């Protein structure tokens, strides 16, 4: 009996962690380029709504995922325009994005509540899926979970081993120097903010098409905000993002396992854990010693203009 619970908890952690992972990876790219986008929650909600509704209408899952991704990017481009071109306060613009996503998805999604749509199911990978214990947990999941596995090394390689990745980091660390080297700061920031939005849209689609295949208003339930905190937890590193996302996924499914084995902790107290844990992590990651070693991109949240050197 305990065996089953451990297996279901761990596989649940991967499933619950996948949307967090996507959103966190996207935000890492945007923040590495120097743009702080707090609007993940809004973009994820629009992704979840778009994914579900397109799947419901067309029955085509991949079209649904593509549409959700695109909508995430579209919303991010609004934030990009506000924060990069108009240079408004990025915190407030991100908040506005959350409101917009909550409002539009709730408004347009009203008619989709209680409907059923095509959703992703597990695909067992040959050979790997037969490994005792591990195979069942890691290699018998749906295809989007696998995409998460692949995205992490790809982004890591891109960030640290390619010229484009180096340019991206340069823009976030020192836009003046990057500009002097002939890198187009504005364009770079636009690109990665929008890519970040793609990831958030995908994260939302995962929630409404695989994790809990349905549409409910505000169904992301604060995961977008957890992803923002995870970026700090991961000190802007994709590999740590993977660990953090799955760990947080684990905490959020632990409550169900605890209920089964009757650990006497009320669900609502369990629900606090991810948030308390995030605060705890921030306490640790924000200490000056840690900041010096693994700080945020220096130009994070600071608009860039050639004329105005501040």
């Amino acid at each position, binding site marked *: 009996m305990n065996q089953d619970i451990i297996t279901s908890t761990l596989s649940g952690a991967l499933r619950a962690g996948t949307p967090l992972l996507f959103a966190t990876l996207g935000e890492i790219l945007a923040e590495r380029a120097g743009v702080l986008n*707090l609007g993940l929650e809004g973009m994820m909600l629009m992704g979840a709504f778009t994914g579900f509704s397109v799947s419901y209408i067309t029955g085509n899952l991949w079209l649904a995922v593509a549409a959700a991704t695109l909508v995430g990017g579209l919303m991010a481009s609004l934030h990009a325009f506000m924060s990069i071109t108009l240079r408004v306060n990025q915190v407030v613009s991100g*908040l*506005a994005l959350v409101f917009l996503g*909550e*409002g539009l998805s*709730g408004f*347009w999604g009203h008619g989709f509540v209680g409907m059923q749509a095509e959703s992703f199911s597990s695909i067992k990978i040959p050979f790997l899926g037969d490994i005792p214990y591990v195979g069942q947990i890691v290699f018998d999941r749906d295809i989007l979970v696998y995409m998460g596995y692949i995205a992490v090394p790809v982004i890591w390689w891109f960030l640290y081993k390619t010229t484009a990745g180096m340019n991206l980091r340069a823009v976030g660390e020192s836009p003046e120097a990057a500009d002097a080297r002939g890198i187009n700061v504005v364009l770079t920031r636009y690109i990665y903010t929008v890519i970040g939005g793609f990831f958030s849209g995908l994260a939302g689609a995962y929630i409404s098409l695989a994790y809990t295949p349905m549409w409910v208003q505000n169904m992301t339930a604060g995961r977008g905000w957890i992803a923002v905190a995870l970026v700090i937890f991961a000190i802007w590193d994709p590999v740590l993002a993977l660990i953090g996302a799955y760990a947080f996924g684990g905490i959020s499914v632990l409550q169900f396992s605890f209920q089964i084995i009757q650990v006497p902790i009320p669900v609502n107290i369990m629900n606090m854990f991810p*948030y308390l844990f995030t605060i705890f992590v*921030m*306490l640790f990651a924000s200490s000056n010693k840690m900041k010096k070693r693994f700080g945020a991109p220096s130009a994070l949240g600071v608009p860039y203009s050639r004329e105005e050197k501040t």
Partner: protein
Amino acid sequence: MKIHFEKREKKPSTLLIFLASLLSILIAIVFLGFIILSLGDNPLTAYWQLVSWGLGTVPGFIQSLVSMMPLLFTSLGVLIAFKMKLWNIGAEGQFQMGAFAATWGALYLFPHLGNPWLFIPLLMILGMAAGALWGFLPGVMRAYLGVNEILSTLMLNYVAIYWVNYLTYGPWKGAHSYNFPVTAEFPSAAIFPQYGTGGLNLGIFISIAVAFFVFYLVKYTKLGFNLGIAGDNLRVGEYAGINVKRMIVLVMVIGGAISGLGGMAEMSGVLFRLQPNFSPGYGYTAVIIAWLARLDPIATVIVSFFFGVLLVGSQQLQLFMQIPSSLVNAFNGILLFSLLASEILLHYRVRWVRL
């Protein structure tokens, strides 16, 4: 083609700022119209429904005032921190903690206190203390450990919400609640004086009084004067001899106490019992209200009332036109964007430059 920004020499006049705000609202209304059209509804009928009840009838007007109260408290709570460029978005959690503490006092600490002259002030203090604690924690973490206050206040919001859920589903569930997650009703001595049957209560007047208190605090005290200096530049603030760290904590505590008082007022004045989801996100809407009011406490009263009208109107929309009330959130988002853009136009001359 390239967009070029030139900083304007003069600070924009109050009239110009007012016009820009008005224009932002107008733009948001136009965009919202298209969104309403997308579901096949007539935007003009919807707008009429949205405002006619709250502004055109006496019961609607009182309802709007009742809706204004929690918004005003929480807006004032975030406003002081915003002046210092502290991004306190924890009003929601502080509001919930205030409601929790008031309920605790009313039902468990001194339920048999018969004297309202003692009971109500005690509950107010409890509510403020709980809200202040929920501001103190992120304040200290920000001031002394450098923890980003946006995230910490947000996380604490969720903790507070789940705390209220835990109590109302669990140990505090009322004996006569038919298994619904609500607490027992407040004893009558713990309830604010009510004027008439429409919901008009003392809490509304307290919220307006708090607005004047904040106005005084910001305009006429040393703290208020220092807020602006420290907000513009933390380092300059330190040179000017301001203990910035202590001030961060103080500002967060005051803001938290005001939002906590709001939670208490919502309990003692309007709901009389704690239940989950008793706040439809007042603390988040507060962020927009504070911005729309350009961080002016008196303007905040007017803007809060305007949002109270919208809130009441959106319930009318859902009731009579089956238009989901989340429309108001979409409006808030668009409004915030147009507001931000207008801010830039106020402070910069924007030119298209041919390259």
